[in-house]
C-alpha cells in the first residue's frame, strides 16, 4: 500500500473534525474492503481514520421496542447474538454464507452496508427487515431507511463527513431464507442473491447483485423479473442471472410459504 497518515479518534466529534480536514480520507472499520482496495490501488487516501476506538458503536442491544446493531459489530458477533438468533435466523444464515471465519471475525456490519457493493450480503435480509440507518454528522443526526441508503455501486446516502452510527431493526420476528448463488461454496461473491422473509402475513423479498444496488421488490417472480437489471461480467452473463432470479425467487417464496 502507498503511505498514508493514520488517526484514531476517541469520539464522533473528533472523527467529524478529522473528516472535515482537506485531503482524501477513508474510515476504517474491519478493513476487509478498504485494505483490498488500497492494495489494488483502486483508491488513494491521505488519511485513514480508524473508528474502532470510538465507544458505543459496537454490539447488539434491545432498547425500547427496537433492536440496535452498532455498525462496528463484527459479522461473527452479529451471528452469535441471542437477540438476533431468536428473532431473525435469516441474518445468522446470511452471515454463515459470507467470507471465511477469519474474514467474518474482522468484517463489520456497517462496513458491509457502507461499502455499498451491489452484492453486499447483509443488504437483502436487512431490506426485508425494514432496517433504518442512523447517521451522524457535524451538522446533526438523521435517519435513513435502508431502502433509500444505497444510491449506486459504492455510493450511499452518506454525505461527506457523515458516519453510520446505528442500524435499527424493528422488533417483529421474521421467518425467512437467504439464498446466495455463487460458483464456489465458500468465500465467493454472489452473482445472484435472494432474501425472503415473512413478518406475520407480510411477505418481503429483496435481491442482491442483479441491479446497481441491492433492491427490495414486491414478493412475486414477475415483480422480481421486472425490477432486476443484471449485467454481464466475468462471473456470469446477464441472461443467466435473469434466469437464476426467476428460479431462486420461486424457490425462496415457496420456502417461506411452507
Amino acid at each position: 500500500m502507498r503511505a498514508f497518515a493514520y488517526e484514531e479518534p476517541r469520539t464522533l466529534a473528533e472523527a467529524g473534525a478529522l473528516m472535515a480536514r482537506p485531503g482524501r480520507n477513508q474510515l476504517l472499520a474491519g478493513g476487509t474492503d478498504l485494505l483490498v482496495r488500497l492494495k489494488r490501488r483502486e483508491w488513494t487516501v491521505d488519511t485513514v481514520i480508524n473508528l474502532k476506538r470510538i465507544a458505543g458503536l459496537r454490539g447488539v442491544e434491545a432498547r425500547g421496542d427496537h433492536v440496535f446493531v452498532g455498525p462496528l459489530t463484527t459479522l461473527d458477533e452479529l451471528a452469535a447474538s441471542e437477540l438476533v438468533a431468536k428473532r431473525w435466523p435469516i441474518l445468522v444464515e446470511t452471515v454463515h454464507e459470507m467470507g471465511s471465519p477469519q474474514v467474518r471475525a474482522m468484517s463489520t456490519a456497517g462496513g458491509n452496508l457502507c461499502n455499498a457493493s451491489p452484492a453486499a450480503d447483509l443488504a437483502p435480509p436487512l431490506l426485508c427487515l425494514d432496517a433504518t440507518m442512523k447517521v451522524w454528522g457535524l451538522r446533526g443526526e438523521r435517519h435513513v431507511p435502508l431502502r433509500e441508503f444505497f444510491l449506486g455501486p459504492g455510493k450511499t446516502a452518506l454525505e461527506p463527513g457523515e458516519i453510520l452510527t446505528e442500524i435499527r431493526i424493528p422488533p417483529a420476528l421474521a421467518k425467512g431464507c437467504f439464498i446466495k448463488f455463487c460458483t464456489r461454496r465458500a468465500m465467493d461473491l454472489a452473482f445472484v442473491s435472494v432474501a425472503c422473509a415473512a413478518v406475520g402475513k407480510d411477505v418481503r423479498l429483496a435481491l442482491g447483485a442483479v441491479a446497481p444496488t441491492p433492491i427490495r421488490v414486491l414478493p412475486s417472480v414477475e415483480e422480481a423479473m421486472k425490477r432486476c437489471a443484471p449485467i454481464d461480467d466475468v462471473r456470469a452473463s446477464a441472461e443467466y442471472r435473469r434466469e437464476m432470479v426467476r428460479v431462486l425467487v420461486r424457490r425462496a417464496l415457496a420456502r417461506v410459504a411452507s
Partner: protein
Amino acid sequence: MKLRLSMRVNGNAVELEIEPHRTLLEVLRNDLGLAGVREGCSTGDCGACTVLVNGKPLVSCLMLAPDAEGASIVTIEGLAKDGKLDPMQEAFVAKGAIQCGFCTPGMILAAKTEDIPEGNLCRCTGYTKIQEAIREERRTTRPQA
C-alpha cells in the same frame, strides 16, 4: 510519520516504531522475523497469513499494524511450549498433512478454533490428510467432545 506500536507477540511484550500503512503481516514477518506468517494472496482469500489476535484467527494481511495496538498475537512460532510441539502440530506431522508446508502455519492456527478450516487454501491440495490430522487431534485431546 512513524507511530509507536506495542503489542504482545507469542507472550513477549514488543514495542516498535512503524509506518501506519503497513499491515500486521508485514510487521510480524519483516520487522520481527516471524517467517511462519506466510504471504499468499495478500487480499484475505487464502488464509496463509492467519494469526491469532486476542485468541481469534484473523488474516493478518488485511489488518493494519497500528490497529494491533494493545493486542495479543500468537503466530505458529508461539505454539510450541517448553520445546514441545503443540498437539495440533504433532498431529499434522504424524498424519503427513504437510506437503510443501506453505499453508501449514495458517491451517494449524485456524484449526485451533474451527473444525475444518474453511478460509484456508492448500495449493498442494492435501485436504484429506489435513482433515485427518485435525480429527485425530480432536479425538486425542478432547475425547469427551
